């Protein structure tokens, strides 16, 4: 299988502390990889590095052949992190239109509408982000990630503090994206939410890759 996402001996230090230690793995297209690990194991850091939001201290990572952090890689990556990355004073639609412009999309309005449809959040368009509940904000944030139809979606603990109904909706959405050929990496503490969606898993412990399973290619 053609690897879409590769990581070669990626390390990241904060001062003298090693948060990621020579993590290496590959993922193919259409995979949903669960990222397990205790708090502080380095899951968020790994996702940030893959998203190009943090520079690795050592090693290289590529997305669709382009090195992370380059514009080419960024165009193919969506990152759902702890913050929604949407400004609370603006409406969902205004925020999304802005990002559509940043991604230089051909038809920004159409892209915004399509993204909202994908997450079933059309009713949120005119609402101010600051007024939204956690679950709704999450949907809007996810819509932002999907605007440019990325081929890689990174999600950092997306199920945290969501109610059951929203969790079910999100699971269905992710399954749909996976089936559509997108590569996803989801870090979570909630096993039940992710386990049956995943086609493979990575486990981090204290910055080191402990185990890889299933279709995820083995790399010692």
């Amino acid at each position, binding site marked *: 299988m053609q690897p879409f996402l590769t990581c070669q001996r990626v390390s990241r*230090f904060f001062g003298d502390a*090693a948060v990621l230690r*020579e993590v290496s793995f590959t993922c193919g297209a259409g995979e949903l990889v669960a990222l397990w690990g205790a708090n502080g194991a380095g899951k968020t850091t790994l996702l940030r590095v893959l998203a190009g939001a943090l*520079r690795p201290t050592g090693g290289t990572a590529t997305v669709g052949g382009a090195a992370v952090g380059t514009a080419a890689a960024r165009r193919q990556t969506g990152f759902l992190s702890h913050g929604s990355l949407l400004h609370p004073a603006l409406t969902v639609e205004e925020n999304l239109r802005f990002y559509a412009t940043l991604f230089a999309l051909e038809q920004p309005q159409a892209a915004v509408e399509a993204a909202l449809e994908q997450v079933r959040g059309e009713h949120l368009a005119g609402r101010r982000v600051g007024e939204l509940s956690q679950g709704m904000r999450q949907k809007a944030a996810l819509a932002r990630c999907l605007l440019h139809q990325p081929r890689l979606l990174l999600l950092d603990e997306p199920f945290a503090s969501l109610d059951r109904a929203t969790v079910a909706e999100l699971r269905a959405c992710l399954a749909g994206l996976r089936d559509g050929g997108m590569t996803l990496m989801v870090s979570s503490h909630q096993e039940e939410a992710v386990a049956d969606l995943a086609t493979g898993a990575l486990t981090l412990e204290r910055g080191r890759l402990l185990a890889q399973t299933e279709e995820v290619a083995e790399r010692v």
Partner: protein
Amino acid sequence: MNTSTRTAWIPLAGAGTLALLLVALWWALIGAPTEATMGTVQRIFYYHAPAALAAWVAFGLNALASLAYLAKRSMRADALAVAGAEVGLAFLTINLITGPIWARPVWGVWWVWDPRLTLTLAMWVMYGSYLILRQLTPEGGLQPRLAAALAIFFAADIPIDYMAIRWWRGQHPSPVLFGGADSGLAPRMLVAFLLSMAAFLALMGFLVWLRYRQELLRGAITQLKQQRALAEA
């Protein structure tokens, strides 16, 4: 990094610099004749101007090293940039302190808005802010990049600054700081002056070199610490 042969040079270079400084000191205090109008205080001139020159050369090194860093992202270039800025600032401080010490007995005021002294003050705050920026940014890749960008800003700024200050002072002429000392120096004074220049430049070079080495060693230590952290379970 081959430390054994390199470290041998340090005491040698240090001794050489010290010798040059002592010789220059003798000439400045004793060898050169006392100036007719200003008296003994004029001897400060032998430290004031060379300190400025040393500072300028050090800052020039900083600018070139910063450009080199932007082009090649080399840690050596960054180490040189830091060294140049720190040593330059130290010499500039000497220059700024000796100026008023000279001016007070001679002109009766501590400060004059002479174009050169004014520019010195501006540069002092600039490079001070550069060092503070370095202090405050987290280590790693970010600090050298931000610092290098700032150094380029300075390089563009200083010529404009000089033009602006000269025009400003041109409208309010003030006594030239070392009237008559620049041209028509008595031969023995010239010797003292040139020796001081050489001594200060040697001292500057020596200090920059030491600081540069120290910075490289620091980087090597960090690398080793990181390698050890990687090897841990």
